């Protein structure tokens, strides 16, 4: 299935892999998003997409077709009771073994607490490069000291507190590995007509090391850490962790108007914020309030809709990397802290923003 593009050098060989994160048979969204991007990268390179899926029993097994539908050509399924819950050591053993056996050129992980626990351990085991928390991935060439490298993975990420964007490459080491931030890659549509292969990976649990190249042997040393308990809470409003916050103020005018703010937030993958005036008006609950008496936020992008920009509100948002203010009044104080301003009717401007994003993204 893996085909080389004409005359491609040997170093270009190897598939593009995604290490899929799953909990109780539910795949992390970022893993599915990554399959979409892996598909594109593999298309550019003329290779196939592999997915590594580890876990235990029927729920995990049932995930394999969904991974094929999202873009995997081969699913490497490591199904063993000992892999029921994610643990760094046995999962590192599984992924490292598979990489050594199949030699993918690229391995991608979600930049979740799980992915960022696992990927560095695997990179260290394999003595290869890893770039954390990427926001973009591309294929391109690289030249260093007169040496040219074709078709490397550009691992693009913010660094230095978001003040720079760095493009990282790993020219001499394979696989090239990256963890990728959730929500930045477009979720591929599930295509149920896609076909792929599910490869059952033999896993054996043993008290001590057994020499057996054909299977993954997990020893007692891989289980010195045990899971005591895992608690997932109901998802609450996470203003602090949001990359994009879309806030509405008194200028929104009504509860119905506020739905427009919510729609923009949803479209951009952001969280809804509000000024105190909007909260006091009862259009939105207090947990959304940004400002001195609410939450202090510092997202990548803060969009203030119909917010005049009181000192109290500004104290809670002026650290945002970028601020876009939309206000009818071109003299509103909010424009003094904004990077971009749109002096206009938010009821007209917000639909334009939604439309522009949907068509561009």
């Amino acid at each position, binding site marked *: 299935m893996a085909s080389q593009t004409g005359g491609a050098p040997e170093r270009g060989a190897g598939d593009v892999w995604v290490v899929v994160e799953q909990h109780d048979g539910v795949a992390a969204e970022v893993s599915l998003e990554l399959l979409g991007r892996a598909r594109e990268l593999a298309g550019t390179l003329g290779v196939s997409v592999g997915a590594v899926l580890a876990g235990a029993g029927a729920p995990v097994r049932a995930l394999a077709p969904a991974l094929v539908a999202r873009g995997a050509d081969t699913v490497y399924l490591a199904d063993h009771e000992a892999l029921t819950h994610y643990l760094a050591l046995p999962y590192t053993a599984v992924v490292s073994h598979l990489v050594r056996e199949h030699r993918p050129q690229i391995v991608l992980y979600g930049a979740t607490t799980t992915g960022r626990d696992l990927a560095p351990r695997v990179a260290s085991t394999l003595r290869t490069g890893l770039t954390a928390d990427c926001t973009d991935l591309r294929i391109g060439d690289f030249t*260093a000291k007169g040496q040219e490298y074709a078709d490397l993975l550009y691992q693009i990420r*913010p660094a230095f507190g978001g003040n720079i964007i760095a493009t*990282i490459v790993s020219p001499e080491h394979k696989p090239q590995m990256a963890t990728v931030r959730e929500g930045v890659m477009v979720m591929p549509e599930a295509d149920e007509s896609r076909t792929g292969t599910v490869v059952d990976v033999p896993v054996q649990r043993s008290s001590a090391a057994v020499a057996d190249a054909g299977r993954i042997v997990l020893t007692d040393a891989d289980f010195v850490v045990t899971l005591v308990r895992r608690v997932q809470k109901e998802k609450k409003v996470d203003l602090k962790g949001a990359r994009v916050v879309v806030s509405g103020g008194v200028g929104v005018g009504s509860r119905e108007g506020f739905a427009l703010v919510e729609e923009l937030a949803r479209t951009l993958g952001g969280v809804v914020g509000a000024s105190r005036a909007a909260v006091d008006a009862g259009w939105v609950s207090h947990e959304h309030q940004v400002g001195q008496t609410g939450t202090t936020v510092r997202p990548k992008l803060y969009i203030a809709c119909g917010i005049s920009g009181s000192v109290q509100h500004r104290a809670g948002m002026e650290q945002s990397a970028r601020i876009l203010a939309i206000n009818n009044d071109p003299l509103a104080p909010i424009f003094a802290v904004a990077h971009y301003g749109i002096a206009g009717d938010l009821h007209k401007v917000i639909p334009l923003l939604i439309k522009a994003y949907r068509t561009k993204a």
Partner: protein
Amino acid sequence: MPQLRIVVLVKQVPDTANVTGEAMKEDGTVNRAALPTVFNPEDLNALEEAIKLRERHGARVTVITMGPPAAAQVLRESLYRGADEVVLLTDKAFAGADTLATSYALALAVRKLGGADLVLCGRQAIDGDTAQVGPQTAEKLGYPQITCVSRIDALAPGGEAGPGDARARGSVTATRSIEGGFETLTSTLPCLLTVTGEANDPRPPSVKLVMTYKDIAAEAMPQYDDTYLDPESDAAEVCMIGRDGKPVCRARIVQWDHEALAADRESLGLRGSPTRVKEIESVVLAQSEARMVEPDEDGVNTLVHELIEEHILG
């Protein structure tokens, strides 16, 4: 019972929370010299956990940092906060290290100390935000890891029982933050934990220790800075000249280079780093007046396109 040994890995970092326009060079790279340096915040949380564990269980707390000679400052601050022993890994051979090469040097240093029961470090440093050095150091030491720890629930130091007995190895139980929740894990010792800012509020430097070092900090430090790094010695004393002109020696900054670590040079620094920076782009905006965008389709489209291009919008 043998004394518990805790090693804390710390980093001196540019204060990325206060990056100004001047911190960026015209070519878009970071002018590190224009940035003040700080003790990486989550490493302070790790040190605080170590001191708390020492108060409860008794322990020897050793702090290691890797960096240029000036990074000794975070070691002094560690002494003010109660570290028993500090080690500076400094050598041109370490320069340009990515996380793989950094973890190699750190793991060798922990080994040279005779290993540890617990290795603690911050989850991530604010300059790179990679969160990779902790797990990669653990892997090289052959220690298990618990990352993103918001609370150390319990520590059972190793007992006197015979080898092979699980109780003899001791254990640590810690809670880590995960998306929308948490999980609690128990590990045998030795173990490496990466600690988040949620774990504690680091206490300020001890008044007593600051008093001990007062003269040093006030007067003799610059002079000391120039001379303490004696290339012939791997154990320079934090020995400063007091106001009365007499030396005040309180603690030592142990200094190790690649030879002291018996390191493979091919695994160190830039040479030992698989990753290369291909390109750096500045995204610092001079805070000025808002750029006004026309409230029409063209204006909004251009703006959205620009925000996507600059990775502000995903």
